[in-house]
């Protein structure tokens, strides 16, 4: 039981990794392709965070990029200032990104998660814009953050392997979370908050939990992003970036990890693919074609590519019933 649950997804992930890493080591892929693959993995992690918040917990967030940014800046500062670029510090830097994003997610989530649906969306949007303004002016407090000039000089520490294993870890953790009692509590809030409350679920706690987990994943993705593109600029974490990730999560299918993975990778590949396929004189059509593709996909699959569907190891475990003991009161108290 235990072995199958852990080993199966791990083996699948490992197989994909080995193939890609071999291709990279054998220089079958060029730097551009490697960057794109790495970025796709980062985007999976990033989008998965929003899927926990919105897809599973049903809390509409239009400010996810803020946590991506917070993670990115936090981890970049840690490597740059605290560890002066020492590559061994990378895990610590990533952890700092996760922790900062999760902590801020907790602080902001606690009050604003009381809001419902679109109102919550707008509040998170407002939060996102405020964070961007703070990034723009951060140099007044922490000169190293660079403000609108951007944060330079981050060592390039994110490799494909790092991004891949981070994404894989994120997927496994989210999967394990969702298919647990805590995960079901998270999902019940999405389904019907009043009913969840009436079932004894502390909805505030689970909304906050989902928000913290989602923010933490965004922070992890941000840390990886910072050490891949080695330059941070506030405009990378503005409102439109929150919209991008929302699109990816919805297109993949809310509450589907498989969908998020497919859509995140597909989104990165679509944008970059268009760059390659389009003839030189039609480069500015890229951003015209891309939204059209999104619209068409959405109309054809209104619940997203994988709405409600999971594949392979991401499927919920089968329920096996061992003893058929009908009419047995479940509580111990009757004894």
């Amino acid at each position, binding site marked *: 039981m235990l072995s199958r649950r852990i080993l199966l997804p791990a083996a699948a992930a490992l197989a994909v990794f080995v193939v890609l890493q071999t291709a990279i080591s054998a220089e079958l892929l*060029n*730097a*551009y*392709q490697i*960057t*794109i693959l790495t*970025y796709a993995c980062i985007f999976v992690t990033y989008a998965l965070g929003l899927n926990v918040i919105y897809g599973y917990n049903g809390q509409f967030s239009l400010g996810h990029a803020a946590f991506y940014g917070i993670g990115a800046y936090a981890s970049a500062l840690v490597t740059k200032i605290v560890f002066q670029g020492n590559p061994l510090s990378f895990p610590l830097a990533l952890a700092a990104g996760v922790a900062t994003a999760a902590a801020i997610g907790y602080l902001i989530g606690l009050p604003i998660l009381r809001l419902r649906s679109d109102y919550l969306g707008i509040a998170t949007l407002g939060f996102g814009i405020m964070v961007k*303004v703070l990034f*723009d*002016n951060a140099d007044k407090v922490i000169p190293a953050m660079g*403000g*609108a*000039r*951007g944060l*330079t*000089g981050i060592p*390039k520490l994110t490799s494909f392997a790092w991004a891949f294993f981070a994404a894989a870890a994120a997927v496994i953790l989210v999967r394990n979370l969702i298919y647990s009692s805590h995960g079901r509590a998270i999902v019940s809030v999405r389904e019907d908050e009043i009913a969840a409350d009436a079932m004894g679920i502390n909805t505030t706690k689970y909304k906050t939990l989902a928000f913290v987990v989602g923010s933490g994943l965004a922070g992890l993705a941000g840390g990886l*992003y910072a050490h891949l*593109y*080695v*330059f*941070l*600029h*506030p*405009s*990378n974490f503005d409102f439109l970036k929150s919209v991008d990730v929302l699109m990816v999560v919805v297109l993949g299918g809310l509450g589907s990890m498989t969908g998020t993975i497919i859509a995140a990778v597909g989104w990165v590949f679509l944008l*970059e693919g268009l*760059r*390659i396929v389009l003839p*030189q004189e039609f*480069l*500015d059509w*890229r*951003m015209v074609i891309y939204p059209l593709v999104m619209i068409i996909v959405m109309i054809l699959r209104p619940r997203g590519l994988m709405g409600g569907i999971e594949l392979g190891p991401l499927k919920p475990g089968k329920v096996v019933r061992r003893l058929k003991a009908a009419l047995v009161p479940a509580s111990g108290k009757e004894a």
Partner: protein
Amino acid sequence: TTSAVTPAAAPQATQAPKPAATAAPAAAGTGPAPKFAYKIGMVAPLTGDVKTFGESTKNGIDLMVAEANARGAKVTVVTADDKNDPTEGVNAANKLITQDGVKALVGSVSSKVSIPISDVAQSNKVIMITGTSTNPSVTVADGKRKDYVFRACFIDPFQGTVMAKFALDNLKAKKAAVLYDNSNDYTKGLAEFFRDGFKAGGGTINVFESYGKDDKDFSALLTKVAADKPDFLFLPDYYNKVNLIAAQARQVGIAAVFGGGDGWDSSDLDTKATEGGYFSNHYSPDDQGATVQNFVKNYKAKYNAVPDALAALAYDATTLLLTAAEKAGSDDPTKVRDAMAGLSGVQTVSGKITFDKNGDPTKAAVVLQIKGGKQTYVATVQP
């Protein structure tokens, strides 16, 4: 598009810094023309809200390449869009270098894109030269020189300081106000260096305020400025923003003289609202020198538009690149780099360029005034 800046017809031609040199031959005349197949990449914002800057840049590059090829060069350009987004910029640069195999990059427009691209170029040992990115970090980051990276424009400190000196010395301004775009490092850089220069020179600045990139309403800021009654209002942004601010400023009755940087240089500048204002630039269209006149003439012939500063600098960046490549006699980036670093006194539209140790050009700035709806040469400021 009403205020045609027609340098040739400018009546103040006598004030031009240099008298007309020998009449310029036609397009195929002098200029770099590396005689080997040279594949270069262009990164520019071809989509998004600064697409118009990207197009000017593209036009400038394309014009230079076309001229060089007419002279017998074999330059091909591969273009990639960066959407004015750092991430996209890196992806675009990576694609050009590793997928298309370009040997040099020209671009991008904003520093926020050029900075990460410069790291890509440097680590791949590919030449990069940007026309318009003025942030010092493009060529030097954290004290480390990226030796494959160059630029054709002066950097923020220089331009901001030039205007501060000009306002103090030439305009005798005592009190200045500054409005800048908080999210744009170009305008922020100019604003801060202006402030520092102006204050160091004994001036006062009470209003040093920013706005957002998408703001259209400046009434609150301008009311603040009006209440302060400065002599000089520094607006170091691109012409499109300046148009809006200047018009609204006049509306609320601000009498100060306006000033700005090279972002003002465009035929789309609202010369009515900015009348009497001064801005620093890389060159004067009044310049009767062959390079300037040829460039303006050819540009107009090809694109039916007057070139703005972005186009001129992109053209210059390409000129410098091709000159170095011709000198190196090879498309090998390392050789081109060495040739580039050794360039001295190359005549470009924006003046005679020599690179300093940081890959930044040392060249003079000119100050122009909007007078009677036209750009008029006022002074040249040496670095």
